[in-house]
């Protein structure tokens, strides 16, 4: 039992750090209506950039910023492939993702992983500052919460501005956005850029918290992001205030991690984890269809009474 609690503790902390990635996926998938696979590459990109900079003696906090910026660039590339070169959305993301695999490897100096053994990270720094009772998971959690709250605040503000509203309109009805004078190509690039920046930042935080970056650490990011977004939506609905929708996305990420922790405890082989995730997401994505089939008749009956 204690072991389970411990693993849930660290699952919550991981969930919040990955939750920042989920916010990025939320921007593309929910706001722009664009399933962006770049994130698999940009998550590892963030990890790689941050790890190599730390190894080079950079300040870990500054490395987060550079990781974020590198994610922005990845997003722009996908955006340009899609909007200017007219490559279909999914394919644009796949192309960036594949290209990033090589790029990430060369960023890490050709090695498949970089261990941050004994190096200073934002987590070790924070641990030194925080009271002694804070264990590793608590430190991770605190940092994750601070970052995600700040990001949610910024996103809340940004999507309420004129440009933010236009990005939302572009995702909702591109035709209308353009008829209203919106440069929809630019809005899509902007959304992709922001999203991949957050995903890379999340990758950098995860790398620092787990103490290593791995070229394969981004595999399945998009699926996990979608899982979290959908879990959040199923639990809290979509009719809630915008800020709470973002909170629900991060919460979804936490719940996803807890589920995984429990399942692993129950004896699922970790090699089967991705299969399990795919099944969860497939089930979650089919919820609307299942609802439409089984729940609608009920509503009609109520009306008839």
């Amino acid at each position, binding site marked *: 039992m204690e072991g389970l609690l411990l693993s849930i503790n660290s699952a919550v902390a991981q969930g919040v750090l990955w939750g920042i990635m989920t916010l990025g996926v939320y921007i593309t998938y929910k706001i722009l209506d664009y399933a962006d696979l770049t994130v698999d590459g940009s998550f590892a990109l963030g990890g790689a950039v941050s790890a190599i900079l730390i190894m080079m003696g950079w300040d870990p906090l500054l490395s987060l910023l550079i990781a974020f910026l590198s994610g922005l660039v990845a997003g722009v590339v996908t955006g340009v492939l899609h909007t200017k070169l007219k490559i279909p959305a999914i394919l644009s993301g796949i192309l960036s993702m594949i290209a990033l695999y090589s790029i990430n490897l060369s960023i890490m100096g050709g090695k498949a992983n970089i261990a941050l053994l004994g190096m200073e990270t934002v987590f070790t720094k924070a641990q030194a500052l925080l009271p002694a009772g804070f264990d590793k998971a608590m430190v991770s959690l605190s940092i994750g919460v601070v970052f995600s709250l700040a990001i949610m605040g910024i996103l809340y503000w940004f999507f309420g501005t004129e440009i933010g509203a236009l990005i939302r*309109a572009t995702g909702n009805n591109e035709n*209308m956005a353009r008829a209203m004078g919106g440069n929809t190509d630019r809005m899509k690039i902007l959304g992709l850029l922001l999203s991949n920046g957050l995903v890379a930042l999340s990758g950098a935080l995860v790398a620092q918290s787990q103490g290593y970056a791995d070229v394969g650490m981004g595999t399945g990011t998009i699926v996990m992001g979608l899982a979290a977004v959908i879990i959040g939506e199923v639990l809290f609905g979509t009719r809630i205030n915008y800020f709470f929708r973002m909170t629900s996305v991060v919460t979804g990420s936490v719940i996803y991690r807890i589920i995984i922790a429990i399942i692993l405890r129950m004896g699922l082989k970790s090699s089967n984890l991705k299969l399990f995730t795919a099944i969860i997401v497939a089930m979650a994505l089919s919820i609307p269809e299942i609802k439409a089939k089984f729940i609608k008749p009920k509503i009609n009956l109520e009306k008839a009474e």
Partner: protein
Amino acid sequence: MLKIRNLTKVFNIGTINEQMVLSNLNLHIREGDFVTLIGGNGAGKSTLLNIIAGVYMPEEGEILLAGEDITKMPEYKRAAFLGRVFQDPLMGTAADMEIIENLAIANRRGKRRGLSWGVTREEKTKFQEALKILGLGLENRLNDKVGLLSGGQRQALALLMATIQRPKLLLLDEHTAALDPKTAVKVLELTQELVEKNRLTTLMVTHNMKDAIKYGNRLIMMNKGEIVYDVSGEEKKNLKVTDLLEKFGSFSDRMLLA
């Protein structure tokens, strides 16, 4: 206001489906004109409006709006001068956004968008006043998602959105065709009201010959990518549907079905 010279549009160039949809079309719409445009299915009416709006680029010809050559201007840029309402009520509004958000986006048509707040307090009052004109009670539902509205309500809102920033030219493409007859009449009357109130230069496609005669000061008929009939003033006022049918019969019989 709008000058179109030698406009030619060919779809699917170089394929077996190549089709010349507009051929050497010339049209001059004066400031303040309210032009109704009729023609059979596939005559090229929507294509003409889409080319004016920049959705498609023409193969040949030029388009001048208020003296400015907009032939090659991208769609989103020329939107600054154009108000558009489409046939499909879903197309002109963003369903998942609130009424007030939709109007705020429309209110910024042709303006630079920055990082200031998407809706200002002054706008709220302005929108409430404007929505009252519609007579649909939408002024009390500013924060409702547009997706909750009926087709007619959405089309009325789209019309308001197209005109809230005065456009140099209002383009209406069968914007009442998807509505039930009663609602269609309401939206048409609203159109008339907004056009008159703002003295808008308007080009309205309709499939209804009665409406084409009733509204506007000028009527144009298209057939196979060409303008085949163009009347205005007294002559137009005295037109009867039978005149149009006769006129039309000499070109094609497809319109009778429409």
